[in-house]
């Protein structure tokens, strides 16, 4: 990962979020509060706009910009969770860590903030699978899809979906799906 890739990553992620905004909201309707699409769309539009205006020159500057925009523009639960992830990544980058370790710190920060464990049917399930794959140098689009899909049969134990209990079974977790988009676009940005 470098600054050019990072900017491309955010542009691609924004495109996917805008394209899939309605689908994210649809996923969030039966088991959540129908705001995930709107919130992510608003947040990522701000991230991309801030990149254009502030023209970050280092990966660290970029991660900082993503953090502040997600924290101040998204709201709901996804704002602090994604914001905490990028804040952790920024700190690990400052410490000179490798990309796998940077992503892992992002994951740790999400768990610190949201207190979710593997199997709770949240974005954490996707992050754990991805971090492990990146550590082993074997992250693929298929692996991401499988991790997202794997949230479907689970019963939610954290987040708003936990209120509906058994009725959360059979639905993909919206946060897991948006995290899937994040990592699909990361792979695409790295490959370009």
């Amino acid at each position, binding site marked *: 990962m470098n600054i050019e890739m990072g900017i491309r990553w955010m542009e691609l992620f924004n495109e996917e979020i805008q394209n899939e905004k309605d689908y994210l909201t649809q996923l969030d309707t039966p088991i959540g509060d129908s705001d995930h699409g709107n919130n992510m769309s608003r947040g990522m539009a701000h991230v991309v706009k801030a990149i254009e205006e502030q023209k970050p020159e280092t990966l660290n500057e970029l991660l900082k910009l993503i953090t502040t925009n997600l*924290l*101040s*523009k998204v*709201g709901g*639960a996804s704002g602090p969770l994604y914001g905490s992830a990028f804040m952790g990544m920024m700190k690990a980058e400052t410490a000179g860590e490798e990309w796998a370790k940077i992503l892992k710190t992002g994951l740790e920060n999400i768990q610190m903030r949201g207190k979710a464990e593997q199997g709770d049917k949240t974005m954490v399930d996707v992050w754990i699978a991805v971090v492990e794959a990146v550590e082993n140098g074997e992250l693929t689009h298929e692996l991401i899809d499988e991790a997202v899909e794997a949230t479907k049969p689970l019963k939610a134990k954290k987040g708003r979906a936990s209120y509906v209990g058994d009725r959360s079974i059979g639905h993909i977790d919206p946060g897991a799906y948006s995290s899937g988009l994040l990592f699909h676009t990361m792979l695409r940005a790295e490959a370009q």
Partner: protein
Amino acid sequence: MIKKILNNPDYIVDEMIDGMVLSHPELIKRVPETGIIQRTYDKKGKVAIVSGGGSGHEPAHAGFVGAGMLSAAVCGAVFTSPTPDQILEAIKVADEGKGVFLVIKNYSGDIMNFEMAQELAEMEGIKVDSIVVDDDIAVEDSLYTQGKRGVAGTIFVHKILGYAAEKGQSIEEIKELAENLIPNMKTVGLALTGVTTPGSSKPSFALADDEIEYGVGIHGEPGYRREKLQTSKDLVDELLKKLLEEFEANSNNRFAIIVNGLGGTPLMEQYVFANDVHKQMKDNKLEIKFSKVGILMTSLEMQGLSLTLLRLEDDFFLEALKATVDTINW
């Protein structure tokens, strides 16, 4: 598309805040460029009570900003928690040097955003403490879920803590009071219709013309049971039974109640319901020492009601509820 009076759904919260401030300039003002409503009342070196959350629950929380209740309220997007930077700003403008006490409804988004704001404020040297309100008994509480939701009982928390702050209690005393208050307060609701967020084309859930749902949340979250519409008496019977099961047996039979309209139910129906609540409480040998009936914590245009019972374990609760305040909607 459901009919709503608005200009652009993207600006609905913004325009609502301006509308409130223009209508009540003697009570409240907006912190420029934010979703924060602050009271105009002079700072007196007391603890500030601050609350907030997603919009769409009006008059909660901005309608309860004023002398004797909230110092400030933070309005997020519709049904979406406000962000940490906004909450931090509210803490800063409300602080009178004695610390700021946050009243947070139990939703994962609210908890995370308020916690982050609390950490940021403490880094800036402001003393902050908080309580999480989780009065909705419709949702099963267990170690493995987020727990119960915060709903209409939050208004009693604003009132009682606001009074304690006005009386000059310290932030530690207010924390203790809040911790005694929450376990004594339970709420459960019912809906006659679903709810549609501004800009959406369809409601969050649909009920048939003759159906109701017990235990719904204030964001269109599903409840615990659906059945055919009953008479007011039978509705009260169901909700009261459900609530009383949650209180441990105890010789104290004194309660304060809230009959809260969820947005689309007329006051006439609320008072019919309140009449049945009073009668059935009396039949159960329970005494109502204080009643609040009205539209307090809503879910946009949802037709329905919630019933809150607060057991008056501490005489201070009743004294606080009866005190006069200067807000738009108490």
